[in-house]
């Protein structure tokens, strides 16, 4: 199941930039075996499909939410076993209704990560099989990890 062709970072970068010239911008941080990029909300699912099917990124390491006071951010870390690269994709979400396409249909591993991000930040993942709270009890209304949530207060 590992891709027969091994891609280097430059090849991956070129494939992505030619497929998404405007949507995806690369952050120039030079680290071995790391790839940093920011993507628009709309093009995320296509980008992930391209990464998974053609470029051999089969393992979704992490889905993490960040509250930047004026906007939300959703950070995906997708790693490839064959190419030995970890790709970091940062997606900005509007503050009022943070909605984004779920990547669980592509990687089952992201299932619980997305549920936990919903549980902590309130991001709505469209297309997620069972978007429910995972760590907090069901009847909880607040989202604790947001910056406006006081520690120790409800």
């Amino acid at each position, binding site marked *: *199941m590992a891709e027969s062709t091994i891609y280097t970072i430059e090849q991956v970068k070129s494939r992505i930039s030619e497929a998404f010239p405007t949507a995806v911008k690369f952050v120039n941080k030079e680290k071995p075996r790391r790839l940093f990029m920011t993507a628009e909300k709309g093009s995320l699912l296509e980008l992930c499909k391209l990464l998974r099917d053609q470029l051999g990124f089969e*393992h979704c390491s992490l889905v993490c939410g960040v509250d930047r006071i004026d906007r939300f951010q959703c950070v995906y870390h997708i790693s490839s*076993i064959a190419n*030995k690269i970890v790709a970091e994709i940062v997606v900005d979400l509007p503050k009022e209704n943070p909605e984004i396409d779920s990547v669980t249909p592509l990687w089952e591993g992201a299932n619980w990560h997305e549920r936990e991000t919903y549980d902590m930040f309130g991001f709505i993942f469209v297309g997620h099989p069972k978007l429910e709270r*995972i760590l*907090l009890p069901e009847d909880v209304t607040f989202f604790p990890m947001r910056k406006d949530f006081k520690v120790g207060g409800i």
Partner: protein
Amino acid sequence: MTEMWINMGPQHPMTHGLWNLRIKVDGETITDSEPVIGYLHRGWEKEVENRTYPQIIPMSDRLCYGSSFTWSHVYCMAVEDLMGLEVPEKAKWIRAMSDELQRIGNHLMWLAAIGPDLGNLTIFLYAIREREMFLDLFQALCGARMTYNYCRIGGVRNDAPPNWERDVLRTLDYFEKRINEYEDLVDRNAVFRMRMEGLAYLSGKDAVNLGVTGPSLRGSGVKFDVRENDPYEVYDEIDWHMCTRDEGDVYARYRVRIDEMRMSVQIVRDILKKMPKSGPIRVKTPRNAPVGTGIGRMEDPRGESFMYVIGDGSDKPYRLKVRSPFFVTLSAAPHMLKGYKVADVPSIMGMLDVCMGETDR
């Protein structure tokens, strides 16, 4: 017989730690299951946001009590990546050695846990007796037995004690003979094999897609180990190789962990040969971290542990996200449990090395 939901947990002898496994049972076989977690949720990631960088190290030890050094190590690597700090050479070697000793200690705790699950207390006491030796090693190294607070951002707390190499080599020689004893007790025991073989089959493709990592993934034949795939610290200079099995059942995962214990012994011996004898072991850490992000990624005894730090220029992290390997392996549990018997649940779940501390955070 009608479909019946059985609650195995939260206070159930089979669950190590507090979590609830709801199983839909048709007669004796399991048709569907759903792990319910969150009983041990302490709000770790929120708590971390009002503590300074050095103060988070003892907290990261307490993420998973079984392998506490690996967690503080991955946290320190993430913060060093954020601050762009360069760790002195000897500190890298000491960290790699403590990682491997912690991996052996963790695998011994797992081996001790599957004993009572399958009904035999002897293996529990043998494994815990050996684990005591490794806890004593850590006690001589940094003064504590389980939550070490030994890793620092930019190095380690103190150097190894004077006759450290002699103690470690003596322990490892003694431990090598003990692994053969475990194999006699478990591998050569037909009843243990009957309880372990052919259960919870997970094909390589599904395992990767489900995000399972670590010994459970290598048990299904996938050659993925962060130490070899994305070598951190000094793992590219150590002479070691990955242990995999391709049956993909509970016995394969057990075999991979036992082989990994042997491999860790070989790694520690290699490290002790190649470790520089003198040199600095610690770098003065700046008080405030620059604005930016940092990634720490390493091979935890349970799988790929990953920490993502966002710094905002103050001395407290803006956001610290933890990827716990068992959190994702547990999400793959329903896939493994489908179609097997209720009496198999302890051996299947026991083999995944349950640790709720890192799952619920």
